[in-house]
């Protein structure tokens, strides 16, 4: 299916829209301050919501007394678990396709027990925000603190405190077995064994979670919210005990998502409060609430043992992964699966033994974050590669050259790569772009360079039977309307569709109007997650546009007395290829179709190629549709007396398949690299017995303009992606290998390796001391 798509797209494009760095369709409104985000909407009579949150990480709730709060003048509703029709439901990952066994309990408000500090315990709606804030303070909750467990290693022990209602804190356990691990190490001349640790990372989108909900004139509970997944409307309906079509989610332009707005955040609270009060309700998280209460990147402990022969051939990998799922399951099983499948990296290793577990603790729950389990293992496997290179007296690049996967090779899970893998190309180009190592003028400052390669999936796991739909239609004046359920989190998801539609239908981007993210009115396009939108909705939009184009060209052929194959559609005109003077305006073709009763709109559904669920006993089978291959390179300056790290140069070299919009692709690579830099050097959600010690941007530090180097992007276009025009998705891949490149550069600079992120100045000094 996708092969055909690519050919059709190629045949009539000299790519006069696609492939050009046109400004995105949403840029103007954002530049002029016209774009409305979730907190920018107001309705008359609107109430303000507030969530009362648990002060304990683990406790029994003995009683909740809302009376004082209810009596406060201006309070319109106080709700606790008992007021919720269905306080518990299942978090689903497959949206329309249910895949068994990995669902997690999603509880709206804590009932008898709290599992993490910040868990929602009660809801309030009031006439003003100040009254709502005051009211939550008046709700009397009687807690009985419990011991709790905060270390995932402890949580695995049989005697550990049980976070949930099950008899074990273990959420799931995956294995990958390939070859014979004993043999593998026996035939290794060098073995490197290390334990790597990574902390929780906060998405730190500049827009906090927010939404507005109301009941419309037809009794439909409508939630307008910044979300990456409008399809949560089904879960919201289940919570309220309503039919699915009585709940509507309208997604807003999102001020950053990165996976943090992938789970339900404010939606169910809003739905409940509006359903209870029958009035519009707004709910906005404070920054502290966002940092304390929403899901984080999974902290991991990773034990890696890698063996290689004297001439640098990898022979064996034994990896034990343990991730901290936090208080609720959410997407932990899926994140773990990504880690497990990606734990060996883009390398050929004949003997593999991977054991991966994720466990509940009383820390803030962990869930999706750009990279989804792959940045963690990439840090481990790329650090291992450099350690091995050092032991083998090979350069980091050379060791990788001898082991990179190629098209036709089998990965750790036995899947044979069907598309071009841009190695060692991306590594060579990235390293070359760093240039000569800068010279340090200061004896206390050492310069180092490093690389990190990754193979990161785009598109959802193939057993989820992913689909996306898009509507493309012509207006009577030759303009184009696209309706697609895509959620735009700032990565140009909506704009790509206008660029694709414009390309196929021979108009400019300005002629295309896109409507997005409305469960009632736009065809469902699936989640904005898993780097899937360009691939899925791009293909669906392209297909829909192709169908409309086909009808236009048939009619134009009648008008111009030509076969449709002899025509081209460009610049709002249909012309004969062989005789460009013979043409008809697009507008007139549209009119002619309208007169003839030919519908000039089409809803297309793109189905991703699907497979059955992978076998979890041995972890063999295809999990992902395709991968983006790339390498980051970094040059750092380390002050060995203070430990401070300065980033001098950053390079991101990726095979992007086809750059639909080169400027937008660079934007993704630049942003992803810096977010990875933050992960490597600055960011740490510090939890002490479940209490967040970094609740604001004063304590949780993300890079400022003075901390970063300009990222140099090198885009390779193999056109061998499975997205429209041969594109690959790079939203997540752009982050994954950034941290390892920096860590390897630091090792190159100072000769010591740090095994846990972030690389704080203190850790650098301590490591120096040990030498």
């Amino acid at each position, binding site marked *: 299916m996708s092969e055909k798509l690519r050919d059709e797209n190629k045949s009539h494009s000299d790519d006069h829209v696609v492939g050009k760095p046109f400004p995105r369709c949403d840029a103007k409104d954002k530049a002029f301050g016209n774009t409305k985000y979730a907190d920018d909407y107001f309705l008359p009579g609107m109430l303000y919501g507030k969530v009362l949150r648990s002060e304990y990480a683990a406790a029994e709730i003995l009683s909740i007394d809302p009376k004082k709060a209810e009596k406060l003048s201006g309070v319109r509703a106080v709700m606790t678990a008992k007021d919720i029709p269905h306080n518990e439901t299942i978090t689903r990952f497959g949206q329309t396709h249910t895949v068994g066994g990995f669902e997690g309990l999603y509880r709206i408000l804590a009932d008898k027990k709290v599992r993490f500090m910040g868990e929602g315990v009660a809801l309030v709606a009031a006439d003003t925000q100040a009254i709502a804030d005051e009211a939550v303070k008046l709700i009397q909750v009687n807690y009985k603190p419990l011991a709790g467990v905060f270390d995932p290693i402890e949580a695995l022990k049989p005697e550990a405190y049980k976070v949930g209602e099950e008899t074990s804190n273990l959420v799931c356990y995956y294995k990958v077995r390939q070859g014979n691990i004993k043999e593998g190490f026996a035939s290794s001349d060098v073995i490197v064994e290390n334990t790597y640790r990574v902390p929780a990372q906060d998405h730190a989108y500049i827009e906090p979670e927010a939404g507005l909900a109301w009941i419309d004139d037809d009794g439909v509970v409508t939630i307008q919210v910044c979300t990456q997944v409008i399809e949560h409307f089904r879960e919201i309906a289940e919570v309220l005990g309503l039919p699915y079509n009585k709940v509507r989610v309208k997604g807003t332009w999102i001020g950053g998502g990165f996976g943090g707005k992938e789970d339900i955040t404010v939606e169910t609270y809003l739905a409940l409060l509006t359903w209870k009060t029958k009035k519009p309700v707004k709910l906005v998280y404070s920054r502290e609430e966002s940092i304390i209460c929403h899901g984080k990147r999974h902290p991991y402990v990773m034990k890696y043992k890698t063996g290689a022969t004297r001439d640098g051939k990898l022979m064996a990998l034994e990896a034990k992964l343990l991730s901290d799922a936090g208080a609720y399951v959410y997407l932990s099983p899926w994140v773990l699966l990504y880690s497990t499948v990606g734990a060996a990296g883009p390398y050929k290793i004949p003997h593999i033994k991977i054991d991966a577990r994720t466990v509940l603790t009383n820390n803030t729950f962990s869930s999706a974050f750009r990279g989804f389990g792959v940045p963690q293992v990439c840090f481990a496997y790329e650090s291992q590669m450099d350690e091995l290179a050092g032991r083998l007296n090979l350069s980091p690049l050379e060791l990788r050259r001898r082991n990179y996967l190629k098209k036709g090779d089998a990965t750790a899970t036995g899947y044979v790569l069907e598309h071009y893998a841009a190695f060692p190309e991306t590594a060579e180009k990235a390293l070359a772009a760093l240039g000569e190592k800068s010279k340090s003028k200061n004896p206390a400052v050492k310069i180092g360079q490093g690389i990190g390669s990754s193979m990161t999936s785009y598109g959802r796991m193939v057993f989820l039977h992913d689909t996306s739909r898009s509507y493309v239609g012509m207006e009577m004046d030759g303009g184009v309307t696209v309706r697609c359920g895509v959620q735009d989190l700032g990565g140009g998801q909506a704009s790509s569709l206008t660029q694709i539609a414009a390309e196929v239908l021979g108009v400019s981007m300005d002629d295309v109007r896109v409507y997005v993210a409305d469960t009632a009115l736009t065809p469902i396009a699936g989640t904005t997650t898993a780097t899937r939108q360009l691939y899925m909705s791009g293909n669906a939009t392209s297909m829909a546009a192709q169908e409309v184009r086909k009808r236009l060209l048939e009619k134009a052929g009648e008008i111009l007395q030509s076969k449709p194959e002899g025509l081209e559609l460009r610049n709002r005109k249909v012309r004969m290829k062989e005789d460009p003077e013979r043409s008809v305006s697009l507008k007139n073709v549209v009119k002619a179709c309208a007169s003839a009763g030919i519908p000039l709109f089409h809803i297309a559904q793109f189905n991703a190629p699907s497979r059955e669920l992978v076998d979890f006993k041995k972890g063999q089978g295809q999990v992902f549709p395709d991968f983006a291959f790339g390498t980051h390179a970094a040059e750092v300056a380390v002050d060995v007396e*203070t430990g401070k790290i300065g980033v001098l140069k950053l390079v991101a070299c990726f095979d992007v398949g086809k750059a639909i919009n080169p400027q937008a692709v660079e934007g993704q690579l630049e942003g992803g690299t810096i977010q990875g830099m933050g992960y490597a050097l600055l960011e740490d959600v510090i939890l002490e017995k479940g209490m967040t010690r970094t609740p604001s941007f004063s304590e949780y530090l993300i890079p400022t303009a003075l*901390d970063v180097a300009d990222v140099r992007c090198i885009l390779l276009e193999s056109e061998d992606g499975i997205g429209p025009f041969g594109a690959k998705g790079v939203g997540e891949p752009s982050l994954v290998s950034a941290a390892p490149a920096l860590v390897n550069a630091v090792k190159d600079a100072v000769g010591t390796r740090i095994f846990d992120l972030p690389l704080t100045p203190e850790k650098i000094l301590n490591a120096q001391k040990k030498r």
Partner: protein
Amino acid sequence: MNEMEYARPKSLKEMDRIVGAAKRPVKFIAGGTNVIPDIRAGALSSKLLVDLSGLKELNFVKEEKNEIAIGALTTISNIAASRVIREKAPLLFYAAGQLGSPLTRNRATIGGNLAYASPAADTAPPLLALEAVVHTRRRLGRERKIPIDQFFLGPNKTRLAKDEIITKITFSKPKDPSKGSYLKLGLRNAMTISVLSIAVLLETNGNVCRKARIALGAVAPTPMRAYRIEKKFAGRAIDRKNIEESSLLIAEEISPISDIRASAEYRKRVTSVLFQRAIQEASRGGKP
């Protein structure tokens, strides 16, 4: 519920009247960059906010024959743009440029920075090294001068009485202002609270140090002077041996805490390092 009141006097006399007649406890506010977050955090309620930013006469940088005077309401960005400060007290100039962010610097005042008395207050180490005097005023014109090394009592605690405001800060013009340095170590290159900061001002005669003033921030309950180290330098050569010896001793002068930013151990280690660098930079004549 938190209900506050507000007044913005246009003169000191009017301020006296307002403070005198106040039925609620008074909280002075100027730039607001510390007070407003405290209000938001619920640390201040039911107060009368008396806004000093209307007192235009307290907003100045004046160079006299022997001293420099800075009005308490002078914004940090004005100090960071002042030619007088850059030339005559560069260590204060550099500190001002690293406080907060460009946005907060446009509102934050030097008086506010001192009155809030964070142990990491950015302007404190340079002012300590300059041996500044804090001029204050209570109601009905009662004025006093507090040497800055007696001004801070503890984290967020000063000698200021409840009705007392800072009017200006003065210091004698350093003999050789270029023999000063200011270094700040933070986890990030902007908008960062100091892990440690150090200000050094030297009076030298060739290679001999006649007088050294060394001040530190974020390594004790208050910004502080390292008097014992200063004594070690007085009259001695600024040479490698001396600097190294002193750098080992300075760790004993300070009492840093361990917090989410750094451990006490780390702070001690880098204090020695930054001390050496600050002395070297100051003796060379400041930044190149």
